[in-house]
């Protein structure tokens, strides 16, 4: 049994990535994710891997594009403004069906924003972010343990479906120290016959490409990709359900907001309010079924977010607006307190507890 070690969330991502067989890291400095780059800079040269500080986020994601097209497990990490710059490369990777891991340790925005935690890149992460019709597999850790576990899972899912994966974290989980059991060493579980490994004069040349000038062909690639997306939506939505069995008010929150919300749910129960929590672990695919299943049994939903209300759209869509949904949020690097969440739960409960 592996021992527990005390680590920062960002470091847990880095070590878990290495254990998942990632030997190619390309990054560019930005707060609050710098520990990932620093960890990689220390470790990669010792294990025959690549740490490369690129000239920009744009270059870094294109280096990932190159390494991924060579069939390697590769990653980059950044924070919100840097992820915007990576948008071009991410779209190309989606269009070329390349697996890779992109970590976004979110900070407040828009623009240069701030350096404190945020979840305001939810739309960008879950609705595409770059140009064209595409999705990423987006995982949202709520603890240092999940920073490690979901990093390993992200590489596996990305390889399996040939869809780039994003770890959507926030500055709090990134900077927080907690005990963590690191995942076992692993490697890609799938063959990559499409990878650029040189023909060795033994097979026709492989081409990694997202250009299709014939409309019928481009349509076909989009349709094929969306068949894979449908399979991902059917099989890979993950969430944690907390005190939902008899819940009448359903809080929906991920990441650091979910940890605050859990305290608020417990406090609500202590006051006799039947509150529960659905914590999405994947936000794309969004756990629609969990929300839809809860809808008939609850008075309403409270979406707790570090944004002006982005995930709440998916909550409403998932339940077909069958029940009211209220937003409880702080932005700009602020985090809602358990009392603020509790007040929102009471309000949704009708103030009759």
């Amino acid at each position, binding site marked *: 049994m592996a021992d527990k070690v005390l680590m920062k969330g960002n470091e847990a991502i880095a070590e878990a990535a290495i254990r998942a067989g990632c030997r*190619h890291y*390309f990054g560019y400095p930005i707060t609050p994710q710098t520990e990932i780059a620093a960890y990689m800079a220390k470790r990669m040269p010792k294990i025959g891997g*690549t740490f*490369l500080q*690129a*000239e*920009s986020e*744009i*270059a*870094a994601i*294109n*280096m*990932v*594009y*190159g*390494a*991924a*097209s*060579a*069939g*390697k497990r*590769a990653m980059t990490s950044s924070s919100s403004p840097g992820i915007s710059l990576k948008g*071009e*490369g991410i779209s*190309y990777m989606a269009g*070329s069906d390349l697996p890779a891991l992109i970590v976004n340790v979110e900070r407040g925005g828009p623009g240069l924003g701030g350096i404190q935690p945020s979840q305001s890149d939810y739309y960008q992460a879950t609705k595409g972010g770059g140009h064209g019709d595409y999705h990423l597999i987006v995982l949202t850790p709520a603890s240092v343990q999940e920073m490690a576990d979901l990093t390993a899972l992200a590489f596996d899912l990305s390889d399996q479906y040939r869809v780039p994966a994003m770890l959507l974290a926030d500055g709090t989980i990134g900077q927080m120290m907690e005990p963590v059991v690191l995942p076992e060493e692993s490697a890609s579980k799938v063959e990559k016959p499409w990878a*650029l*490994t*040189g*023909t*060795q*004069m*033994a097979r026709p*040349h*492989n*081409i*990694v*490409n*997202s*250009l299709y000038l014939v409309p019928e062909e481009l349509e076909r690639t989009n349709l094929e990709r969306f068949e894979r997306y449908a399979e991902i939506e059917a099989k890979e939505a993950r969430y944690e359900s907390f005190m939902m069995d008899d819940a009448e008010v359903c809080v929906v929150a991920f990441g650091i907001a979910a940890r605050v919300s859990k305290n608020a749910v417990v406090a609500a129960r202590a006051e006799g309010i039947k509150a529960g929590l659905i914590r999405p672990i994947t936000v794309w695919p969004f756990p629609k079924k969990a929300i839809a299943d809860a809808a008939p049994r609850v008075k309403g939903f409270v979406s707790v977010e570090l944004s002006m209300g982005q995930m709440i759209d998916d909550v409403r869509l998932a339940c077909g607006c069958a029940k009211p949904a209220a937003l409880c949020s702080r932005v700009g690097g602020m985090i809602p307190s358990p009392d603020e969440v509790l007040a929102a739960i009471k309000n949704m409960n009708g103030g009759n507890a």
Partner: protein
Amino acid sequence: MVVFEKPKSLTDAEFHYCPGCTHGIIHRLVAEALDATGTEGIAIGVAPVGCAVMAYNYFSCDMVEAAHGRAPAVATGIKRSLPDHVVFTYQGDGDLASIGMAETVHAAARNENITVIFVNNAIYGMTGGQMAPTSLPGQVTQTSPYGRDVKTAGYPIKMCEILSQLDGPEYIARVAVNNVKNVRNAKKVIQKAFENQIAGKGFSLVEVVSSCPTNWGMTPVKALEWVENEMIPYYPLGVYKDRSEKEGV
């Protein structure tokens, strides 16, 4: 006896290039260099955005299509993953000297062990003839209809001159393919740029002064004359940096 044949490193796909365009010659020279070095089976090429966007259909080695200007970064990712493979980019002037300037300069500064083929025809060809970073002063294009005015549009960028100032790169050279003598020399220089990589020497860039009869609005013959009389005087041919020569290696 076969006295002339297609290089093995080219596929049978027909080029889409305009009549009189020199991309065809340059493709052939690159393929001949792969043949001569016996590296087709371990070569990975990076196609640009621009006229050569579909180069991935023409070279018979493994190929990837990069975003506009990002080919050196993509090539870096591949080379770092597969250091024993031969990795090259094939880029135009808008791609390499405008939108991809940072990627070009930094790959050179890192002495990334890749080969870069830079086709300079002083115009954006694929989008229909707009002013390029290398368009000459006074050159008429769709976006400089009164001629490139250096007061508002600035001066052309001389990549070999810039890159040869860096400590990083191994080999920086400029050639042309407007006549037989220049083609023969270009063939030698391009082959050397690949041999450098195979020997592990580092970043080698060959700028090929090229023509674009279609967007220059000239006949192919006139275009080659324009290369000789206007382009080459502004972009002098030669080896701008050769570290092994300097160090007597």
